[in-house]
């Protein structure tokens, strides 16, 4: 079996990619279990927080404020990070970011590099580039390690291996770590990973990380994690390279009082994550003595300029929208063909691809808005989805052939009919007449001819009632007139 394709430029459209997954009952069971557990924890901790909505409001406003003043805060961050001993690099796109990182690693003569889980590194497809340059990238997050050793791909932003169960992890570790006797209880599996990685932490002198937040006020970087692999990578190596999207800035250190609270509760259902690390530049005697940070644009400045879409960049990658999404919960992450899965992936991925790829993703949603309700920074994902759908429709519109396009003709006809009350009544009358032939005795329509059959293939349609609302309204007793006397 070939692995999932996570490059949006070559991934199959969502419905096609989702099909085999929907038949994989084991994977669906794993995804359902994991998302249920996280959601239950998240809901319990959100319920106990009396000021949850106020925190959300403040978090959303903080992120929106940053985006509206992004250039100022980026320059401030650069100045303060540089003053603290960091080296700031700027990358317009994925290729430039990869090149900057490769150049640093080359200068360091690095043969191996330890990595903290970073979505941004997957976005720029860093690992294949490192491999091609002969540099072994070692993922140190337990989930990422499972995926790396199993030649698998992440399917969730926070718990990337949630689609793999303990027997599968055991099999991967036993095979790749040479431990045939390894039992399949999570405790033993975790211990095996600890031993396996400890040697790497102590010996590999170069690390790559992402960033949860950049603080403009003092040029510091914040990483939120649970396992301690982050702390290892931030503390033990000689050289640290951090890759961060330009949207990750916060104005002040104290803004963390809001963002850390909403992030931990939304992401893992904890009051705070077990470990949060903050550092500015280089500290003599403590931690890496060389620190590089790569600020990545890769389409973000374009998103920033769009009125409806800008809010996409408010995201703090908590993945609460994935856990609650009725579509993600059925398909898992691989169907999205991008490191960013779920509702946020459905709006972020096509935009990062300049709407040239992944155009099926804005349709991978029922627009139920559960994602909007849980989002800690109040991104109105359905609003963005609809706007992106409109862009896709505009893209696909072909002026030359549109008079033979049934969708276009149908919409034109509807536009005409809805344009006046008389035409609307007429259309209703015709519709009633036409649909009568297809309505079963119990009032349901199960089979329509021609193009209509594409609708009834997987759905039943309630037949039209005997009376329209307008008819009922005109025939009813005028109650209000009596009352007002």
């Amino acid at each position, binding site marked *: 079996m070939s692995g999932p394709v996570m490059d949006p430029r070559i991934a199959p459209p969502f419905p096609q990619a989702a099909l085999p997954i929907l038949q994989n009952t084991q994977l669906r069971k*794993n995804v359902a*279990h994991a998302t249920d557990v996280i959601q239950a924890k998240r809901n319990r901790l959100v319920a106990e927080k009396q*000021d949850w909505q*106020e925190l959300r*409001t*403040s978090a959303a406003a*903080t992120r929106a*404020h940053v985006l*509206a*003043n*992004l*250039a100022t805060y*980026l320059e401030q961050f650069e100045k303060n990070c540089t003053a603290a001993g960091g080296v700031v690099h*700027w*990358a*317009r796109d994925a290729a430039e970011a990869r090149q900057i990182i490769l150049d640093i690693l080359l200068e360091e003569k690095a043969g191996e590099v330890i990595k903290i889980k970073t979505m941004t590194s997957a976005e720029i497809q860093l690992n294949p580039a490192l491999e091609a340059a002969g540099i072994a990238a070692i993922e140190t997050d*337990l989930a990422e390690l*499972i995926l790396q050793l199993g030649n698998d791909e992440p399917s969730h932003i926070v718990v990337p*291996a*949630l689609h793999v*169960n*303990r027997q599968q*992890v055991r099999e991967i570790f036993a095979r790749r770590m040479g431990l045939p006797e390894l039992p399949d209880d*999570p405790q033993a599996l*975790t211990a095996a990973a*600890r031993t396996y990685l*400890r040697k790497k932490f*102590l010996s590999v002198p170069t690390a790559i990380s992402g960033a949860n937040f950049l603080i403009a*006020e*003092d040029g510091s970087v914040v990483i939120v994690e*649970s*396992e*301690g*692999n982050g*702390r*290892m990578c*931030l*503390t*033990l190596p000689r050289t640290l390279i951090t890759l961060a999207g*330009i949207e990750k800035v916060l104005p*002040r250190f*104290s803004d963390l*009082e*809001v963002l850390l609270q909403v992030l931990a509760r939304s992401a893992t259902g904890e009051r*705070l994550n*077990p*470990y*949060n690390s*903050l*550092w*500015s530049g280089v*500290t003599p*005697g*403590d*931690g890496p003595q060389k620190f590089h940070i790569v*600020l990545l644009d890769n389409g973000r*400045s*374009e998103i*920033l*300029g769009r009125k409806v879409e800008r809010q996409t960049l408010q995201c703090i990658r908590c993945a609460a929208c994935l856990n609650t999404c009725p579509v993600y919960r059925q398909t898992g992450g691989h169907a999205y063909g991008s490191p960013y899965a779920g509702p946020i992936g459905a709006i972020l991925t096509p935009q990062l691809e300049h709407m040239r790829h992944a155009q099926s993703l804005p349709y991978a949603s029922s627009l139920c808005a559960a994602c909007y309700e849980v989002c800690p920074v109040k991104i109105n994902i359905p609003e963005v989805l609809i706007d992106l759908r409109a862009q896709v429709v505009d893209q696909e519109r072909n002026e030359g052939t549109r008079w033979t396009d049934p969708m276009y003709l149908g919409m034109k006809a509807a536009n005409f009919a809805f344009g006046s009350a008389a035409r609307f009544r007429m259309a209703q009358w015709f519709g009633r007449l036409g649909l009568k032939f297809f309505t079963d005795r119990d009032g349901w329509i199960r089979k329509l001819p021609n193009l209509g059959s594409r609708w009834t293939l997987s759905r039943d349609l309630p037949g039209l009632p005997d009376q329209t609302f307008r008819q009922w309204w005109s025939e009813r007793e005028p109650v209000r007139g009596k009352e007002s006397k």
Partner: protein
Amino acid sequence: MTANSRQFILDRVRAATTADANRYQDIPRDYIGAGNLDPQGRLHLMSERLQEYGAEVVESSPADLPQIISHQLQLSGKHHFVVPQGLPAGWLGSGVTWSIDGNLSHEEIEQCGGVLTAASAGVADSGTIVLHHGPMEGRRIISLLPDFHLCILRASQIVETLPEYFALFPMPPRLATYISGPSATADIEMTRIKGVHGPRFLSVIIVRDDG
């Protein structure tokens, strides 16, 4: 090349945001700032939240502290401890081996079974131990490699809410680690497992204030 990219990105960002006047002071802050517990209540909540995470918590008077430290170290079953340079000599009792960090190598620290440090603050609401890595908390590495961490927190350092902590430290620290329970993962079937890479055992002594 990089210099050009910098200008290119900043120009694009500016062009995308020119029309947006938006002031930092206008960000609404109607969330809970300070809590309403008294010092005793804060101490209890801190202790409760730490224990929820599986950390061990004992209380001590200032006078009993050296004795309680010795006792907790003994209970840990470890014999060799690393400590930062700035701890009071009275905390380092006899009966165990001490390595005082200055510039110890990774390997030397890895040899130690445990670490003893002070803390910069405690946040009761989330059971968080804050380290700013000053002389009494030490370099980041010493509270990371050993398997057992004994942390001394004064009751007067405990605040109730996270915003109270930020109010206490308006100047951002150069380094900070917030520890809210021992190293953990839920990556395999969402089963919470303690101790992936950081210390597996966290023990906290809360020192009551004098008087």
